[in-house]
């Protein structure tokens, strides 16, 4: 499996270790935390899951494995940031609970799991009127 990040129809900016992505078609803004950003940046169709896990290990100085990469790909796929439907190739999705079981022993949990915050761009009337302004905590699956 060689995941490929979607390229078209996206505006991308970096802020610190995080990546901000705006989906022009869906009018959605996403904030990828550091670990999700690394997985997304290396989803170029040339890196396998194990190679991306190796990148995580190197850049984050933790022992990462394919489970956490799959978890990140699940998150990215669910908000349409991957080409095709990469994570269903293996016939299942990876839940936070699965990942926590597998990574607890190797230290990745200490730096946090891959997370993608998403919000729909407000219309002008929404931005200027009633509504919830607090970013939504991604929370557990």
């Amino acid at each position, binding site marked *: 499996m060689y995941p490929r990040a979607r390229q078209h129809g996206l505006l991308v900016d970096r*802020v*610190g270790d995080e990546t901000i992505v705006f989906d022009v078609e869906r009018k959605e*803004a996403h904030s990828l935390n550091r670990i999700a950003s690394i997985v997304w940046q290396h989803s170029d169709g040339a890196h396998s899951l194990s190679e991306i896990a190796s990148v995580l290990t190197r850049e984050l100085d933790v022992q990462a494995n394919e489970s956490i990469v799959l978890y990140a790909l699940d998150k990215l796929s669910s908000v349409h940031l991957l080409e095709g439907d990469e994570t269903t190739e293996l016939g299942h999705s990876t839940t936070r609970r699965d990942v926590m079981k597998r990574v607890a022993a190797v230290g990745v949990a200490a*730096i946090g799991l891959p997370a993608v915050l998403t919000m729909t761009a407000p219309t002008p009337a*929404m*931005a*200027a009127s*009633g*509504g919830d302004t607090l*970013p939504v905590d991604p929370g557990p699956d």
Partner: protein
Amino acid sequence: MSCGVTAPGAICFEAYGVPIELRASDAELLDALLRVVTPGASMSAVASPEIGYSLFAAGEHYAISRGVRRVAQGTNVEELLDLLESELHFEVAVAARTRLFVHAGVVGWNGGAIVLPGRTHAGKSSLVAALVRAGATYYSDEYAVLDDDGFVHPFARALGMRDKTGRTNRVDPRTIGRVGDAPLPVTRVIATRHVAGGAWRAVPMSRGETVLALFDNTLAARSRPADALRILSVVARHADGFRGERGDAAAAVEQILTLDPSDQSIPR
């Protein structure tokens, strides 16, 4: 259609790249219209107004039209002017080309700006007023006006303070404290909302969360997403972000002004 500054019965100005014309049926109403001119606007001749409103009197009634469409009428001209001001500022905020408007209260503090993004009824005005009474400098209770470098500019309209009946009363900010007149770098973004009986509890936001908290209140989020994300990312690189609920505005002021980002432990 064109409008000169001295055109009879009209006020013309440009606000943030948007040409505007206001007309009135008599000199007294035209004079009254001066108070709704957008803060930061420059009075100038306008070749082709993009936004145009008219205020006219008919007997004891007054009416406001946008183009040929009547948008409001009544006997209380002050209430109509409040409505016109709100509508005009909203239209400018959406159409602005030289600045980015985020629905937020803004005060200056220690050489930087504290931006409080939030929508109507989030309690922005009361919190801004309490901060100004505590020594902060007033910038706006409605819009954070951001330039390309992420600096916030004054949009010092009269504060809109709601009373217990829900009616909005206008308060001249100079009667409660200082008013800012120069752009400031944003040093804090605090996404908070009033919850009756609540207590202040601030949670640090990551830089990405801070961008989204501002983006969620950006008037041009859909029409200028590239500009919005670029400018908001600049802001988030230099500002510390917090989110949370708060109770009474006066009780939250001290905590807001003394927030110490170094006490927080989230990765940046």
